[in-house]
């Protein structure tokens, strides 16, 4: 039974999160400000922290800094501040993930699950060379299977190849023509839009919010890239 600390000054949100998490079988410790969370962490061992940023007494950033002096449990920021700069700052301070409010419950649970698994299995499984991992995405090249936050994703052969190709070079931008020639093993003659269509389908499968992709990003006018969360690079 994993223990999850939920910290938010909004009581309704804390109880909603509690309902979701408990329905998945987790034990939830609710807190309503940063100081409380720190106090709890001093007393109990926790497997994951869900942390709001804008809170009274001690805000999320400060709290995270203090948490990191105690433990290295996964911390997921949960905030209404959706700015890119906020995300980067949060991840830099030491957060493991970032979920914006209003959140999608399915996505939230999937991420919690994924981080718990990784945290708990850390050091247990040595990453073998047939497994590619980027953020919550895991690729098992032997089985030709892809997992998003531990869930198996149904991919076509082409989608799998594209994903594998992009994941093996995270952060690098590939032009549609380059992707075509690598994946199809053929010279592209105006087939770039095929790539674009496949990528869109792929994105719908591996992203919770395809309009704001986390992993498979379209760099407009240049191509596509796979990108994990900043701290994992």
């Amino acid at each position, binding site marked *: 039974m994993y223990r999850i600390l939920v910290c938010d000054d*909004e009581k309704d949100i804390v109880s909603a999160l509690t309902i979701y998490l408990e329905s998945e079988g987790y034990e939830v410790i609710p807190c309503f400000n940063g100081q409380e969370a720190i106090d709890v962490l001093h007393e109990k061992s926790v497997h994951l922290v869900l942390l709001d940023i804008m809170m009274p007494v001690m805000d999320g950033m400060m709290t995270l800094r203090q948490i990191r002096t105690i433990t290295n449990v996964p911390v997921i920021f949960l905030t*209404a501040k959706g700015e890119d700069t906020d995300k980067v700052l949060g991840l830099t301070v030491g957060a493991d993930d970032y979920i914006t409010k*209003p959140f999608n419950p399915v996505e939230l649970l999937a991420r919690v699950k994924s981080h718990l698994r990784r945290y708990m299995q850390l050091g247990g499984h040595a990453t073998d060379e047939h497994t590619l991992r980027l953020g919550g995405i895991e690729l098992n090249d032997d089985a030709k299977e892809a997992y998003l936050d531990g869930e198996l994703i149904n991919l076509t052969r082409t989608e799998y190849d594209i994903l594998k190709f992009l994941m093996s070079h995270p952060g690098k931008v590939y032009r549609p023509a380059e992707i075509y020639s690598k994946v199809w093993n053929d010279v592209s003659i105006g087939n770039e839009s095929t*790539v674009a269509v496949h990528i869109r389908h792929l994105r719908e499968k591996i992203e919770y919010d395809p309009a704001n992709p986390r992993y498979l990003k379209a760099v407009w*006018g240049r191509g596509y890239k796979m990108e994990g969360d900043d701290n994992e690079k």
Partner: protein
Amino acid sequence: MKNKKMSKGLGIVLFIISCCIAFVSMAGIYFCATSDIYQRSTEALYESASNDLLNIYSMNALSAYKSDFYSSRFKQSNFEYGVIKLDQDEDINKMDLNNHENYLYCNFDQDVPKDIANIYTTGITDQTEFNVSWSFLFNESRISTPNEQVFYDIDEICRYQSSIYARVGKKLYLTEYYDDELFDVQIRDLNNKEINQYTIIGTEEPASFINDNQILVEEAPKDMETYAVVSFVKSPLDTTKKDGFVKLKQMISIAKVMSYVIIATAIMSIAAIFYLLIRLISVSGVIEGEDGYALKGFQRLPIDGQLLINLAIVLIGDYVVLIASNLNSKLFLVTIACFFIVLAFLGINMLMSLVANFRVGGWWHRTLIYRIWTLIRKILNSIAQRLSRMTMSKRLIFIIMGLTLIETFFVVLFGASPSIWLWMMVEKLFIIAVYQYFNNQWKAIGTSIRHIANGELQYALPVELLDVEYQAIGTDINHINEGLDIALKEKMKSERLRTELITNVSHDIKTPLTSIISYVDLLEKHDHYDEETKQYLEVLSRQSQRLKKLIEDLIEASKASTGAIQMTMESVDVPVLLTQVIGEFEERLSAEGITLKVTNRVGDNAMIEADYRYLWRVFDNLMVNIAKYSQPDTRAYVDLTADDQHIVITMRNISKEALNISSDELMERFVRGDSSRHTEGSGLGLAIARSLTELMNGEMTLDIDGDLFKVTLTFDRL
């Protein structure tokens, strides 16, 4: 054609001939008038002319003084003459000319008719030269005896009535010197009484000073013998003898007639000149077989150039004539005739050229004066332009150089002392120093303004270092600085407040919304509801999702329109972008029954600068717009075009609803093409797209043409 051409040349030739005739006639008339041919009778003319001829004959007779005075030659002539040898101081007028003993030789025996007789007297020595001829026209016969040069010692130098005389004994020699030129010697003034005691010798024996004490006098030689020839024409004239007098008589009667004939010739030739002049002018500039006027050959030269050439020819001709006149009289006549012909030709040619040039027009622009003037103006203009483009300092240098040139000119002209050069140099250095002083001040002021322009508002101009005149300006500039600084700080503060407000409001709205969405979701997870409750829950879920979308759009729109978005500009390959647009939206559009047609009219090389994340928002908004508002079963077009500076992407679709609002209104926030507002959406899509485009230095315009909806995105080409 040929005929007319001939007539022009012929006209010129006739003109020249007429001119010559007119000139000769006029010259004849002038000659006749000056030699009284019109005024005097034939007899009177003959009388005066025969006197001249008698002189010539006398000279000829004397030239043979050593033999027989041509006595045999005059036998068959009307020339009656006798030669007398005069002793010194003997007066021919006092001699009895009828006494034949006085004559050395004489061919008449009657008495000398005193009224018509001619007496020619001359002195002869061994040195005497006889230049004599028989012709009676243009006769230049002369008998000349050279003077002897004798030196005399002067007794004294005298002055009488402002003339200077050298006295030698009783003789006073007139000298060609005047008072002020004379040497440093005593000059005695003579009175009237004294002057009568002396004999004055004038210019017939010219005297000149050798030194203070001697003069050189040219005197008649001592051994000179004086001869006189008394002559008259035999009366009555024997016309059977073919001598000069008979010819003279005939000639004078002819001349009398001719003198009237040439008047007629003159009138006729002048008339001819005028007629030809009018004819030639009328055909000047006319080219046969062509309309209008044109220039030919010499006429094409600039008018002033033609005049100069003509002037040069005339001057050369004049010089040639002058040389010829010094050589001999016949050559002179020939050259002056030629010169006159040339003059006439040049005159008519020039006149015709002038007329032709005036007729054709634009002659002024062809003249040398005009061209030189244009050139000078061009040079002056370019100098002025260069000066105007120069900085003040360089201009000052040029002005000083110009001034120095002018000053040097005047200094050289008036031959001023060298110290003026020094003064001029000091003066220039002073001007430069003063200019430099003020220029530095201006530069300091300029620097401070530049700092303000660059936004460095903290920059303070050191006012105390400025000249008194500029201190007020400096103080004002510093005040501007402070004013701007305050304004800017306030603006930055309000900008920050606004951004903070947006963030805070968004947070404050999102927090309760999170609860709503979460709890609606939790409610939906239960399955023991009746149908009605399920429907209500579905509405709650949908509307809360819509509220979420609206809030996100609203926040984004306000951030985009206030520029509170940080753009990371990168180069973007537009053809790749088009491919991605197809990939992202083709299926979505065809789900709505819309066919997407993407056309690249540029090729592979089309780069712009943009932030790809926000470029995606722009395209997403616009393409979603097309998907939402297009008439099903129509086509939507995305075209890529470009020029040298710009990349233009146009999107066109056919609207589902009638677009009865303007494109400007449509771009406003919260305005949608459908007035019913039934469909999903915030109405912010176009406004956000435009704000983001502008933040990426692009331009987005809307065009509505009936149901055709057209969006144009313009970016600077890289």
